[in-house]
């Protein structure tokens, strides 16, 4: 094989790679669009009026997750499954956002921490790498941390909306999450930075709970505090 042939050969590899990336980018753009729609839907929970509508909003979000499933299904066809990490950067960001949204829906519905299995199931993907297109653990964790920060905002807005109960439940939830994260040894990477942000979320929620406590507004929650 001559040098020229060899380079043509390699060039073949490279353009195939670029084509794949182009295809992936397109699907990912669609996913980002859907993610933004789900977010808009869920944003209403921060509005005073939005609190009663949580169940219906969650239901609608669940519907949109079907679109997500279809889109991810499409994404999977774009590249060989065992090369997940070769193209990881392309969908990493949106997968974290979608994990956040799934975790937020699950929290709003049940006040539980979504498991990796549940996220995978909502998004129509796998937990274990060997089984196919999966949810990377660090992306799952990042998504959960985005939710934590959304919850600190929710705690604040709950008070504005007159719901003095929710902040205490959020506080319990976030504290447990914080205990979980403390078990991890993170590298100096974006996830670590996000985790540092969790401390501020915990702090903010603690301040809300404090404000309620000193005003005796947290009392009623004592009875219903065991969620």
């Amino acid at each position, binding site marked *: 094989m001559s040098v020229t042939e060899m380079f043509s050969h390699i060039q073949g590899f490279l353009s195939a790679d670029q084509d794949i990336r182009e295809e992936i980018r397109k699907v990912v753009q669609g996913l980002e669009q859907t993610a933004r729609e789900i977010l808009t839907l869920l944003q209403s929970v921060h509005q005073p009026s939005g609190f009663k509508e949580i169940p219906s909003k969650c239901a609608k979000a669940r519907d949109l997750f079907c679109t997500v499933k279809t889109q991810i299904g499409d994404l999977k066809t774009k590249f060989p499954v065992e090369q997940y990490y070769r193209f990881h950067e392309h969908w990493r960001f949106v997968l974290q956002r979608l994990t956040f949204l799934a975790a937020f829906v699950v929290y709003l519905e049940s006040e539980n921490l979504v498991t990796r299995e549940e996220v995978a199931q909502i998004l129509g993907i796998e937990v274990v790498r060997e089984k196919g297109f999966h949810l990377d653990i660090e992306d799952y964790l990042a998504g959960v941390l985005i939710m934590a920060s959304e919850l600190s905002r929710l705690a604040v807005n709950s008070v504005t909306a007159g719901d003095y109960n929710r902040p205490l439940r959020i*506080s319990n939830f976030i504290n447990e999450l914080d*205990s979980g994260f*403390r078990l991890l040894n993170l590298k100096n990477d974006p996830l670590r930075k996000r985790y540092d942000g969790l*401390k501020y979320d915990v*702090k903010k*929620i603690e301040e809300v*709970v404090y*404000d309620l*406590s000193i005003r005796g507004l947290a009392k009623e929650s*004592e009875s219903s505090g065991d969620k």
Partner: protein
Amino acid sequence: DAAREQDTGSCSSPVVAAFKVFQQELDTKHDKYERLVKISRDITIESKRTIFLLHRVANVPNTEEVLKEAELKLEGVRQKIGQVAEELRGEDIHQFHRAFTPGIQEYVEAVSFLHYIRHRSLISLEEINARLVYMRAEGGDPKASAEGPAPGAQVLTFHVTPSDYLLGVADLTGELMRMCISSVGNGDIDTPFQLSQFLRQIHDGFSYIGNTGPYEVSKKLHTLRQSLGKVEDACYALHVRGSEIPKHMLADVFCSRTALLDSDEGVA
């Protein structure tokens, strides 16, 4: 290999003979450098994990156990530093300094963090170095013993340089800031004020040194100042929100809340 050298026509030349010695010397040095880099990476990783472990102190009922586990981990790190010292036996420590400085700085960060949690004070360079003294065991490392029966070979010491100490302490302030924010989140209102006092002292210390220290220190000053700002802001917020309720009520409020939030068990 030896066979080839025999064959080389020019091997009789004194120049080539000299360069064969140089080859040996250079390779030996590079190999040592490489070994030190690897040990340093191990030291970094273990020290970082110790720091993460120490952050868990606030969340467990039995602080002492965590501290003991951290102590144990650091003992392991010290053994690794012992390996560094072993490699440096008879060498000029500064010749290989670049190979192991990241690890040592991280160790200083970890050990000073543990020390702060225990004693609420800054560990001194002397205290750190005092624990880096190694006695050679009977069946010691054969590589080390091959160096011959030099007098005093039984005791080996490692000296952290003042600048590695400073750089480690500068990084410590970041961990202290994290600890402070966590404390507030855990409803612990004493620790933040203590920490702000302590951080302010370190900050003033670094300002005093200013740009007379090594360049890397001045580079970290900005981050240090940011950490101090975050801690001061946290104390400010604690004070402001505390202002809305008379002091004697505060305790009651906290009592009832502690009962309320089960996982909310602060250090002290």
